């Protein structure tokens, strides 16, 4: 579904990603963890073309992205097949919760508005926001906003969804609401790559965990192994600081 080979990204002379290789299969939930500044978010943004990269190969749902400039049409295809959920939600402030959800299906998929609205209502209900359809983002809590953002991404029927630290801007209660929705999606077999600081989610929901540090994947594998028997010193110190006890 998604495979990355030797991905290199530089900002000026600073190398952010120094050759990332990993792959995610259909239906897989991959968690990306690691210390801040390890290149996790940049990696995710390279996958849907929000950032260009300098070397390597990225293949997303059958579309191959190369280094530097991207063809805009192909880029749109890639973005249509993978959803993206931002740390800061990035809801459209001039539209209601429902309006945020309906916008892309109507504008991009050319769905009739009525059909899009019906689907959007259903989706908002699924993420626990029935009755909040007409609220503007500024009147929603952070947790509610992030769930609208997830519904907005899901309505595009994406083959995969990329989550960029979806709960980092939320307090624990709201984070739990959002993680609950994400866990539900994982159970239904939604392919997801989740950059997260929630070790609980990585350990219990992900099939594979990738530990990023200094622009490299220092360790990868099923959470049971990575968490109980970390091979790399960086992983060990990171897990210690994150408060995870090796068992």
């Amino acid at each position: 579904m998604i495979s990355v080979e030797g991905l290199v990204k530089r900002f000026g002379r600073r190398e952010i990603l120094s050759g990332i290789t990993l792959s995610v299969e259909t239906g897989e939930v991959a968690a990306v963890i690691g210390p801040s500044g390890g290149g996790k978010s940049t990696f995710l943004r390279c996958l849907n073309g929000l950032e260009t990269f300098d070397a390597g190969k990225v293949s997303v749902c059958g579309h191959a992205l190369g280094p530097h400039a991207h063809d805009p049409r192909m880029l749109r295809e890639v973005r249509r097949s993978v959803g993206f959920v931002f740390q800061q939600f990035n809801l459209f402030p001039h539209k209601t919760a429902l309006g945020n959800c309906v916008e892309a299906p109507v504008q991009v998929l050319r769905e009739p508005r009525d059909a899009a609205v019906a689907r959007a209502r259903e989706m908002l209900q699924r993420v626990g926001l029935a009755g909040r359809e007409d609220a503007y983002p500024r009147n929603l809590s952070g947790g509610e906003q992030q769930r609208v953002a997830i519904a907005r991404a899901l309505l595009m029927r994406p083959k995969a969804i990329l989550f960029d630290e979806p709960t980092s801007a939320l307090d624990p209660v709201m984070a739990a609401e959002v993680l609950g929705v994400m866990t539900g999606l994982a159970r239904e077999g939604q392919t997801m790559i989740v950059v997260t600081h929630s070790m609980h989610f990585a350990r219990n929901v992900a099939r594979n965990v990738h530990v990023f540090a200094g622009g490299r994947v220092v360790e990868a594998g099923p959470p049971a192994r990575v968490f109980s028997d970390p091979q790399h010193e960086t992983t060990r110190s990171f897990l210690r600081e994150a408060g995870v006890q090796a068992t």
Partner: protein
Amino acid sequence: MRFLALLLLATAAFADDSWDRALRSGVLRWGADEEGGGPYVFRDDDERLTGFEVDLADAIGRYLGVKMEFVQGQWDRLPDMLRADKIDVVLNGYEWTPDRVLAMEATAPYYVYALQLLARKGALGSWDELRTGATRKVGCLTGSAAHELMEKLAEEGAPIEVVGYDGNTDAMKHVETGNLDATLQDTPIASFYAPHFPALVPVGDPVAPGYYVMYAREGDHRLVNRLNEALIVLFRNGELERIYAKYGMWTKEQGQLATILETGRFFGFQKAALSEAAARGEATAEEVRIGERKRGWAVVTGYGMQLVRAAGITVVLSLLSFPLAVAAGILIALGRLYGPRWLRPPLAFYVEFLRGTPLMLQLYFIFFFLPELGVNIPAFACAILGLAINYSAYESEIYRAGILAIPRGQMEAALSLGMPRRTALRRIVVPQAARIVVPPVVNDFIALFKDTSVCSVVTIIELTKRFSVLSQSTQATVELMLLTGALYLLMSYPLSIVSRRLEQRLEAA
């Protein structure tokens, strides 16, 4: 009450004449407009002030024993400067007119001029052709005797469209380029500039002779008498002839000056002489009768409608040019932010160039330079085009700032949903930016609304210009100014209210 009246009388009796001040300070300030050009007052190749009026002023100064200090002023505003005590004498081709002597003191004439009609070779055969046939455009210096004569002809039904200019040669240039059919000029100008405009020929003989006089502040009788005295002496000793001959303008009509100056048969002389005699307590044989004319607030009631109609022109100019400026501004802003890389530097230059040069110069360029390249645009279209282009630069900066104020995450979220950049702009970024830019855009509109007054340089008579013309002909400057200001406020204030409403509504959404 009686005491107050006495005090007023006393002040009037002891009030200084400008001549007394000139004697004390040794300086007499005379006002003229360099822009009027040769042969009156202009800069020669060495940037020195020259012209027959400069020579005349110097000769008068030598005779009177005072230094004549030149003060630059816009030609049609010289009487206002006189009233405001910025100058003591107006000496700049000002014709003797019954209206002007109501509000100022006139000296004896120093030159006999006439009006010469000029047209392109073969374009106009005689004056009679002006009275019949197709409508012809005739340009004149705004507020001049030539202007009044043409307006009078037009009022009498001649098919003439009179176009007022701020500078003498502008109209001649426009006859050459074909924007005008003819121009009516004072004889000194027509002969002085003839070599510059070889395409123009005189039509018929000069008409409507009149007198150039100096004007002094109302009540400055002693100054006027000294000036008259100087003129008589300069005429007698041949100095006047020498000066006029130097500029090629000593014509046989100047012989009239002899009669007028020697016999003292001129308005200003009589009035000044009688008044000085009265001040000395001498018996006065006769009284100068001044016809009853509209002054002060009566002018406002009489000419108010003219101002209201001119305000309509102001509104039309604004309403036609602003939408163009907005549309161009949006395109420029989008081009600079999202357009192809090669397009960005020229757009940035466009904005900097138009913001960095005065609107008036840009209008001049469109109006006077484009015709030389063979592009002839009607004055009204020039004005709208000039305003739209100038304001498009300011508008584009407002929109650019508005779009840049929208967080990057908005564009990223839209792109991540698979929207093309164009759709993302149209549906997500621009609607949010629109809320931010409403107040500055309304502000800009109000500024443009007032800037329409600059369009007078391309002969459009809008509110400010109409005020200027009326105040020149009626001398009721203060009253007309108050009415004009009130009209502007009346039109722009509702805009402010609409803007505030719009802001509140967008705030609520």
